[in-house]
C-alpha cells in the first residue's frame, strides 16, 4: 500500500488507565496488529513506548513545538486544571494541561478516549477540587480545556469516545474511520460522541427486555428481572451499544447481573442517588426513557403489569430461570 501511516500520540492525564487496558482486550486481531492494519503508527504511548525519560520528553517537546509532525492526538483521563495545573506535573515542572493544549492546537485530529477526557468523568465528581475537566466539554457544557468552539486543524471538534471504560471496538473503529478521513462532523452526536455506537441505547438487545416489557422487575442486583424499576438501571437512557456488541467476548453490565450506570454520559458519576437504587415518584421511576411521554409510560406499565405471565413474574426475582417457557400442547408430556 502506498498510503502513508497516520502518526498517533497517546497521552494520559487524570484517569485510571482503564481505557488503555480495555484496548488491550481487542480480539482478532490484537491491538498493535489492528493499528497497523488501519494505517496508524503509534509514535508514543506511556504504556507501550520504547522511549523513556529524556528521550520521551524531547519527543513530546518536538511534537508540541511543531518540529515533528503529528496527525492524531488521543487523550485518556481528565485534564487537571486546578492549582495552576499542579495536580499533574511533568518532570520539568510544566503543567501537563499546558502540554496537552499545545499539542491539541497543532494536531489534525483530537480524540478524547473515555468519559474523563471527554467531559471530566469520575475525576470531576464530587467537589472536584482538582479542577478536572474534559478537552472541550466540562460535564454537559461545551468548554473544557480547549473551549466549546474548538475545532482541530482537520476540521472536526474533539471526538469524544465516551465510556468508563471505553469498549475497544469503539476506540479502534473510530480511529480507523479517522485514519481514512471518513468520519464527518455529522457522524458525531451533540456531545461529540461517534454516532455508530452512541445512537444506540444500552436497552437495545438487553436480554432482560422481556422482563422490561412486562415491568417484571428485579429487587436486587443478580436477579433475572429488569433492573430499571428498583435497581438503578439507566439502560433506557444510556447511549451505547453494550448489549448488541458484547464486552470481553460476550458480556455486558446487564448479563453480569448489575445495572447500567450510564457511563457514557457526562455526569454519570454524580447521579444524585445510590447507584443501585431507582428514585421513584408516586411508585414510578424518575428516570424514564427520555423520549417517552410519562403518562404513556404509566399507562403502559400498568397495563403490562396486569398481563405479566406467571413465568416472567416468578423468574424476575430469582437468580436463575426457575420457570421455563411452556411448550405447545402437542409437545407436552
Amino acid at each position, binding site marked *: 500500500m502506498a498510503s502513508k501511516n497516520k502518526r498517533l500520540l497517546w497521552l494520559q492525564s487524570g484517569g485510571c*488507565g482503564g481505557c488503555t487496558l480495555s484496548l*488491550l482486550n481487542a480480539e482478532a486481531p490484537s*491491538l*498493535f496488529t489492528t493499528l497497523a492494519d488501519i494505517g496508524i503508527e*503509534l509514535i508514543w504511548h506511556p504504556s507501550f513506548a520504547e522511549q*523513556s525519560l529524556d528521550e520521551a520528553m524531547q519527543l513530546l517537546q518536538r511534537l508540541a513545538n511543531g518540529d515533528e509532525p503529528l496527525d492524531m492526538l488521543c487523550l485518556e483521563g481528565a485534564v*487537571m486544571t486546578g492549582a495552576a495545573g499542579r495536580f499533574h506535573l511533568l518532570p520539568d515542572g510544566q503543567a501537563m494541561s499546558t502540554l496537552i493544549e499545545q499539542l491539541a492546537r497543532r494536531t489534525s485530529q483530537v480524540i478524547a478516549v473515555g468519559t474523563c477526557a471527554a467531559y471530566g468523568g469520575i475525576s470531576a465528581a464530587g467537589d472536584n477540587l482538582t479542577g478536572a475537566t474534559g478537552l472541550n466539554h466540562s460535564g454537559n457544557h461545551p468548554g473544557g480545556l480547549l473551549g466549546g468552539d474548538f475545532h482541530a486543524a482537520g476540521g472536526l471538534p474533539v471526538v469524544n469516545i465516551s465510556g468508563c471504560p471505553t469498549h475497544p471496538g469503539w476506540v479502534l473503529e473510530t480511529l480507523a474511520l479517522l485514519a481514512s478521513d471518513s468520519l464527518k462532523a455529522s457522524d458525531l452526536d451533540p456531545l461529540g460522541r461517534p454516532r455508530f455506537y452512541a445512537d444506540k441505547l444500552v436497552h437495545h438487545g438487553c436480554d432482560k427486555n422481556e422482563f422490561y416489557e412486562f415491568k417484571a422487575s428485579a429487587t436486587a442486583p443478580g436477579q433475572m428481572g429488569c433492573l430499571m424499576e428498583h435497581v438503578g438501571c439507566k439502560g433506557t437512557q444510556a447511549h451505547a451499544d453494550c448489549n448488541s456488541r458484547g464486552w470481553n467476548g460476550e458480556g455486558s453490565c446487564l448479563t453480569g447481573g448489575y*445495572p447500567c450506570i450510564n457511563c457514557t454520559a457526562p455526569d454519570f458519576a454524580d447521579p444524585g442517588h445510590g447507584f443501585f437504587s431507582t428514585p421513584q415518584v408516586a411508585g414510578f421511576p424518575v428516570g424514564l426513557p427520555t423520549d417517552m411521554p410519562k403518562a404513556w409510560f404509566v399507562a403502559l406499565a400498568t397495563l403490562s403489569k396486569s398481563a405479566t405471565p406467571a413465568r416472567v413474574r416468578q423468574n424476575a426475582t430469582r*437468580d436463575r430461570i426457575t420457570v421455563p417457557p411452556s411448550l405447545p400442547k402437542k409437545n407436552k408430556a
Partner: protein
Amino acid sequence: MSRRILGPFNRVEGDLNITLDFADGKVSAARVTAPLFRGFERILLGREPLDALAIVPRICGICSVSQSVAAANALSALYGISPPPNGLHVRNLVHAVENIADHLSHFYLFFMPDFARADYQSQPWHAGIFARFQAQRGSAVAPMLEARAILMRFMGSLAGHWPHTLCLQPGGVTKVVSAAERVRLQQWLRTFRRYLEQHTFGQPLEAIAALDSAEALAHYRQQAPKADFACFLDIADQLHLHTLGRSYDRFIAADAYAAPDGCWSPAGLWQNGSSQPLALDDISEDNHSSWLAGEGSAAPLHNDTVPLPDKAEGYSWSKAPRIAGAAAETGALARGLLRGENLLCDMVTRDGGNVLSRVVARLTEVARIVPQMEQWLAALQLDDAFQLATPTQPQHSQAIGLTEAARGMLGHWVALDAGRISRYQIIAPTTWNFSPRDSQSLPGPLEKALEGVEASDPQALQVQHIVRSFDPCQVCTTH
C-alpha cells in the same frame, strides 16, 4: 554531588518521576514523585456505602477488580454478611484473571522491552531478545495479547466486563454460572494454559510450580531454553539482576483469595527469614513529604487527604505508609514468601528481594494460580446460591477491607456517619513500595532500592530495571 530529575517513567501504570542525587558515580539518594492526584478518597465522601462499588474500581484500570474486592470486603464487614462458597469461588476466579493479566502485561509489555533496547546491542543475546520483545512489534506481543484476550472472556462471562465491574457485592457475586458456562470457562482456561506451557514456560505449569531452589531454577533454564521465562533467566544471569534493586527485605501481604477452607494467599510480615502475623493496628500513614495537610503519622481511620500543592517539604502526592514505623515492600514476592514457597524463600535468603526475585515471583505465581483456578471452577456447586442478600442497613460504622492486588497489599479503611461514607482511606500496594520519605526521613522501599546503584548515566537501564521490577501502579498510589 549532582542531581537529576528523571521522567516520564513510562511503561509503568500511571505517572512517575524520580529525582536522583549522584556522588562518586553512585546514587546517593533517590526521591520518588507521584505527580498526579485525583482525590478518590474525597469523591467517596457523603455517598451511600454501596456506591463505593461503582467508584473504587475507577481508581485503577489495571487492578480495578482488586479495588472492588477490597471494597466488597469492607462492605461485607459493614453489613455483617459474607459470601457463600460459590460467591467466593467466582470472586477468586475474576480476581485471579486480573492478577494473571497484570503479571503477563508487565512481563511482556512493560519490563522485557528494556532488554531489547539499543543500549544492549553489543550483548550476544540482544538480537534474539530484540526480535521477540521489542516494544509493540516483538514476536511475543501479538500471541500474548491473543491469549490474554481469551482469558479475559472470563470477565465478559463472569463479571460483565473488565475493567470496572459491579458484579462483586458484599454478599457474593451478581452472576450465577450454569453448567454450560462452566464448560466454556474450562475450555478458555485450557486454551490459556496451553499458551503458557508452550510460550511462557516451555513446560507444564506443575513443573514450574515444583521448582524449589535456585539450583532447580538454573536446571529448568537449561531444559527449556526457548521459553520466554528461561530467556529472562538467562539475561538475568548475564546482567547479574540478582544484585540489583535490593531494598529493606521486609515484606508485607494481606489475606487474599478467600475460600471456605481458608485463604489461598495468607497475610503476614516476613523479615529476617521468618514470617509473623500482620498487626493491622501497627499500620500508619505519614504525610510529611506529601503535598497533603498533616505532619507525622496517623492511623488510616484518623487520617485525611487534603491537598496542599505548595507544601514546602512535599515532593509527591503519595503518602508514606509504615508498619510499626518501618517501610515494607509488597507484591508477588511478598505473597510467595508468606505462602512459604521454597524457591522464593531460597532466593531471598541468598540475595534478598531484587530485580530477579521480583520477576520470578510474578511468573511462578501465574504457574501456580492457573491450576488453582481450575479447582475453583470445579468446586462450584451449580445448584447453590452465589450471593446472599445485602441487608438494607449497615450494621457497623467502621470496617477495613483488605486484599492483594497484583502489586501487593491493598487496604480500604471505611467509616460511616448516619449511613453515609464519612471517611474512606486507601493504602495501595505502590503507596507502600513507592512511598516518599516519612517524618523520620526514612526512604520508601524504591528510594532505598535505588540507593548505591552504580550508574555512569542517570538514565542507565539498571535504574529503569529496578523501577519496573516493582511493577508500579501510580494511579493506585495516590488515587
